[in-house]
């Protein structure tokens, strides 16, 4: 005989995730599993379309898919139950009951609001820095976006990591909701902003994760205060190797309309389908904020020396003795994966198939795995 309380607990509700601050609902465009399928943790369950981007939802646990609640193409509010996973020994009646309740909740629209990332700001060197925090575990992870990006670019990474750590995603100066003035735009200024954030938050030990320009920034921060940094995870980082797509960077910086911008964005992804109108729109809205053009122009001077990389992060890395993990998309057209050889034997490098420069958006599990590995030590 089974204890009814523990069997109910054994039913795992798969819910519509909250990918990004503005996401209110999502649409399942394809189910990869059917009722009766056995799933393991990390298996892809479904493709979900938000108004911003399409991503794959991974299973948070193992078990049997007992019920699919939400149909393909159904709009489901964030937090709504879309499937039930449970061991085979949970009786059908209990599953039926849970499925009925979940369906009623979706039909009535009375889905409880899911607490998304908590937004905050700190003042560093006269600038306001904006950040979003998810999770409350003991260890701390700080996610640092790349050139022209913002904290929302970690939308597929921050949520899964939040089970393991307190995960902050920050907007660098010149980006997102942070002050647009970047000062001299140097790597040192950007690294100073990161270290100032850590200081203000009282974070004494942190796992840094940086993408592209953010990869160089976290390296510079680790070089300045190695004692504070538990590990580095570099995702297609700038400042390593001697190849950089200068045309892309200049094109992105100078594009003054969506029409001009879109062709450049195709260089960011392995799958050109990821370059949606919404993505181009959001980037144009960012570029049109007062002060952004000056910030992007200034940072371009940091990233480029003529057509060559303007940053040497590899030299800075020598000052940091802690663990370094690198994730690189094989189809990266901005900073080619071959640049990883510059890291020599210093880091463990994972090359990711079907991923371009935005590997944390196209194959987020590769980045989640790398950071989880760093947390595991």
């Amino acid at each position, binding site marked *: 005989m089974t204890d009814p309380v523990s069997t109910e607990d054994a039913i795992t509700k798969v819910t519509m995730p909250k990918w990004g601050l503005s996401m209110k609902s999502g649409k399942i465009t394809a189910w990869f599993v059917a009722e009766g399928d056995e799933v393991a943790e990390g298996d892809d369950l479904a493709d979900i379309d938000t108004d911003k981007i399409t991503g794959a939802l991974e299973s948070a646990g193992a078990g049997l898919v007992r019920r699919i609640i939400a149909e393909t193409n159904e709009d489901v509010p964030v937090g709504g139950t879309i499937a039930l996973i449970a061991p085979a020994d949970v009786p059908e009646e209990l599953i039926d009951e849970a499925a009925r309740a979940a369906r009623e909740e979706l039909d009535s629209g009375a889905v409880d609001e899911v607490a998304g990332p908590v937004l905050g700001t700190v003042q560093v060197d006269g600038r306001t820095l904006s950040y979003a925090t998810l999770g409350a575990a003991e260890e701390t992870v700080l996610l640092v976006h790349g050139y022209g990006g913002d904290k929302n670019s970690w939308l597929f990474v921050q949520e899964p990591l939040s089970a393991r750590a307190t995960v902050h995603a920050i907007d660098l100066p010149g980006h997102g909701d942070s002050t647009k003035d970047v000062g001299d735009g140097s790597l040192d200024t950007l690294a100073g902003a990161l270290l100032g954030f850590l200081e203000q938050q009282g974070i004494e030990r942190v796992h840094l994760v940086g993408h592209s320009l953010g990869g160089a920034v976290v390296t510079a921060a680790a070089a300045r205060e190695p004692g504070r940094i538990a590990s580095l995870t570099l995702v297609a980082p700038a400042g390593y190797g001697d190849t950089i797509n200068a045309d892309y960077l200049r094109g992105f910086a100078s594009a003054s309309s969506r029409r001009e911008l879109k062709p450049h964005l195709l260089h960011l992804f392995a799958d050109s389908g990821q370059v949606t*109108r919404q993505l181009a729109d959001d980037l144009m809205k960012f570029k049109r904020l*007062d002060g952004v053009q000056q910030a992007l122009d200034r940072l371009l001077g940091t990233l480029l020396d003529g057509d060559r990389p303007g940053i040497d992060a590899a030299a800075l890395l020598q000052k940091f003795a802690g663990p370094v993990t690198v994730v690189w998309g094989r189809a990266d057209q901005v900073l080619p994966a071959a640049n990883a050889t510059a890291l020599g034997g210093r880091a463990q490098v994972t090359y990711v198939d079907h991923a371009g420069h935005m590997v944390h958006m196209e194959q987020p599990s590769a980045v989640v795995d790398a950071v989880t590995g760093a947390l595991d030590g």
Partner: protein
Amino acid sequence: MARTISYREAVNEALRQEMERDPSVIVMGEDNAGGAGSPGEDDAWGGVLGVTKGLYEQFPGRVLDTPISESAFVGAAVGAATRGLRPVAELMFIDFMGVCFDQIFNQAAKFRYMFGGKAVTPVVVRTMYGAGLNAAAQHSQCLYPVFTHIPGLKVVLPSSPYEAKGLLIQAIRDNDPVIFCEHKALYDMTGEVPEDSYTIPFGEANVVRDGDDVTIVALGRMVSVAEEAAAELARQGVQAEIIDPRTTSPLDSDTILESVENTGRLVVVDEATPRCSMATDISALVAQEAFGALRAPIEMVTAPHTPVPFAQTLEQLYIPDAQKVANAVKKTMDWKK
């Protein structure tokens, strides 16, 4: 960051941020400062629909009440603009343009041209237009085509809160006279708007929705009507592309033509009366420049050529709605030689 605010708040925020940024920006118009200081009123009314509310308190001496004399205060704004200020004058309703038109079309619009490019006139005339508030024939018109007809004026029709803020900031920073047309029925529309200042360039249409079957060009309030129609059409398997020109002068003809080259069908949705309107203008543009791409005659969905009726039922019938737009689209889809 972006938060959800109303069209009215977006206009107000644009004015506030530009007044904070640039001391030469002033606001003037009927009742913009009205009520302030009188018993029981701490703040100004902020104009007839409260758009400039709160500015009087924050910017003493820079929000001016004017007599009910459009010719005088629009003329004063134009003159002040030539002398270094950046006035934003509120012409309460576009229907009142008749009494101040000389100041706009013969003075403001001509200075740059007649003084060999040496004179600039950075004046903005904010004005409210459109039917739907049961305000009768003298307070409900869509007279923006009249301004569009005049070289030397820039004419702006924001269709959403995001557009309202970015286009108004652009209008204030622009060195030419700008007629900024706010639809009365949009003031309570809400949408995501960044807190920071930003600009939207003039002459760049926004593709509101992608589609391969038909191009719908919609203006001002008609953009959301077209979206409603497109959502219904999509359920029937017809994918409409919606283009919001955002400014009628300058007009982004490239985006319209490229879309029609792809879809082969055009429906123009315009709340203005149909003769000498944006609907006829855009139709003529496409007939002339993309005739070979057309697979069906161009359709126009407009108000009828009558004054705006006061009777509510007739007013509702007068304004183009989603059903009329969908019907026009179907006509282009079903057309056979």
